[in-house]
């Protein structure tokens, strides 16, 4: 290309590039970057919806969040436990389902539709259905379990059962996503290594572990990356299922910030909490990205 420099200092190609991203960039700046900046500003102030005096208080709000026992003992561990368990278990289940679906059998198309369903239904709806089915007195699943002779569990009124329920719901929603992507990846794999392994009389499990998994590695890593980022901001399921309760014991990070802002009406504190979350995620995200890049180079 001829580098025709204009008065702006961009050549024709660069101007075209900027033109292509301009609309996206403008929306991003106006409705994402500016709010984030406002949020950062608010996090250094004593700002509440009931008291509109916005005094500058420095990092006090951050200290308040960091010394809040609920944040340290409940919110952070919950968020990370949810993230790790949800991503881990749905990855494992997704792998299993994808391997099952990878061979032709009768009714495969129907199976695929059924598997896709949880993904397209709103998390809010899934969570309400879960809440209803696990209702203490008349939930379908509660009654089914007690019919099997299992002890009654107060699903939504104890910490661990309700948190387990939250994680289960999240796994239920996201397993299909892993399944479909992994299935697509499996079907794109070349057949030769599998034939070679079969000739060498490798067991199916051995083929799966030594041939399939290494070849799927790049896909798996990208999936985990995307899911981990999304799992950190889980809100819908937790809010509908438990509302962070009982006694704030299942609050995750998004719920914590939401409660601060719209229940306690303390915008400053909420912005600080949100800022801390964003920072944590920024580091996790950059770290994971580095990991992805490295593993991609290895696999190529």
């Amino acid at each position, binding site marked *: 290309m001829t580098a025709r420099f204009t008065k702006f200092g961009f050549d024709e190609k660069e101007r075209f590039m900027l033109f292509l991203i301009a*609309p996206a960039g403008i929306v991003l700046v*106006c*409705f994402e970057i500016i*709010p984030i900046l406002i949020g950062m500003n608010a996090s250094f102030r004593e700002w509440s919806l009931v008291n509109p005096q916005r005094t500058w208080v420095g990092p006090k709000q951050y200290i308040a969040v960091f010394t809040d026992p609920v944040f340290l003992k409940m919110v952070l561990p919950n968020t990370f436990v949810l993230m790790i368990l949800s991503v881990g278990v749905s990855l494992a289940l997704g792998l299993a389902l994808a391997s099952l679906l990878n061979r032709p059998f009768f009714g495969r198309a129907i199976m695929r539709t059924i598997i896709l369903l949880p993904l397209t*239904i709103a998390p809010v709806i899934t969570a309400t259905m879960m809440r*209803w089915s696990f209702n203490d007195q008349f939930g379908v699943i509660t009654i089914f379990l007690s019919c099997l002779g299992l002890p009654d569990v107060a699903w939504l009124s104890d910490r661990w059962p309700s948190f387990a329920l939250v994680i289960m719901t999240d796994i239920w929603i996201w397993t299909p996503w892993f399944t479909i992507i992994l299935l697509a990846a499996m079907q794109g794999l070349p057949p030769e290594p599998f034939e070679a392994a079969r000739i060498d009389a490798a067991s199916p499990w051995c083929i799966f572990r030594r041939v399939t998994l290494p070849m799927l590695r790049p896909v798996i890593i*990208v999936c985990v990356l995307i899911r981990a980022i999304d799992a950190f901001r889980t809100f819908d399921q937790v809010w509908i299922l438990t509302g962070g309760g009982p006694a704030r014991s299942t609050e995750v990070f998004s719920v914590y910030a939401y409660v601060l*802002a719209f229940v306690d009406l303390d915008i400053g504190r909420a912005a600080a909490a949100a800022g801390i979350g964003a920072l944590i995620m920024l580091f996790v995200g950059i770290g994971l990205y580095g990991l992805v890049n490295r593993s991609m180079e290895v696999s190529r």
Partner: protein
Amino acid sequence: MTSIRPASGVFYIWRGTNFTLNNFVEVLHQSQVVQAMWNSFVLSTLATILSLGITVGSGYMLSRFGGWIQRSWFATIYIFRTVPYISWVLPLYLVNTRLGIYDTYVGLLLPHIAVHVCFFSWLMKGFFDGINPSMEYAALIDGCTRWGAFYRVALPAAMPGIAALAILCWLSTWNEFLFALILSGKRTPLITSTMAQFVTETGTEWNLMSATAVLAMMPALLVTIFGQKYVIRGLRM
């Protein structure tokens, strides 16, 4: 299932023999539910059209060009994708109230588009990566402008991918809850936040809520049954 039971029969698990469609009728008579569904529908459709229109160019740029502009734009997109929604929806609530667009279509639409910018630019890049650029080079040599090569050659080739993304985009806006909860109020209720109200207000009306849930699930069901080919392609990146 609960949606077709009368209110009196909701709590009987085993003896649910009397079914009724009255719940649907009752739900559809509540103007707020109908309004919420209509709002959600309009919002999802507009958000889909606009955000695809915006991201298609940015995805094309990410895929076809290099250099510092491309690299810094990619980094921006990646970084803002990691920011949790709550971190910018909170201040966005303040912005919207200040600008006077809180609880209006515009106030809901623009943030939804902003959400899609990062992720869909990324997915679009994937689609354009999968298309051989030699046709565009040929077009350029034949005297087509860059804009023409993008608009007349690359865009039609990417149409299947864009259709897939459109479905995903529509569904995710329809299903979105956090934004609906924070940024919408009485004037422009959305279907997901309306549903949540059945739960949190005094005494859950399970039968009505289930009917609403079934109605809200309809698009998802239809898409899954008829458009699953496209959804799957859209998910594949």
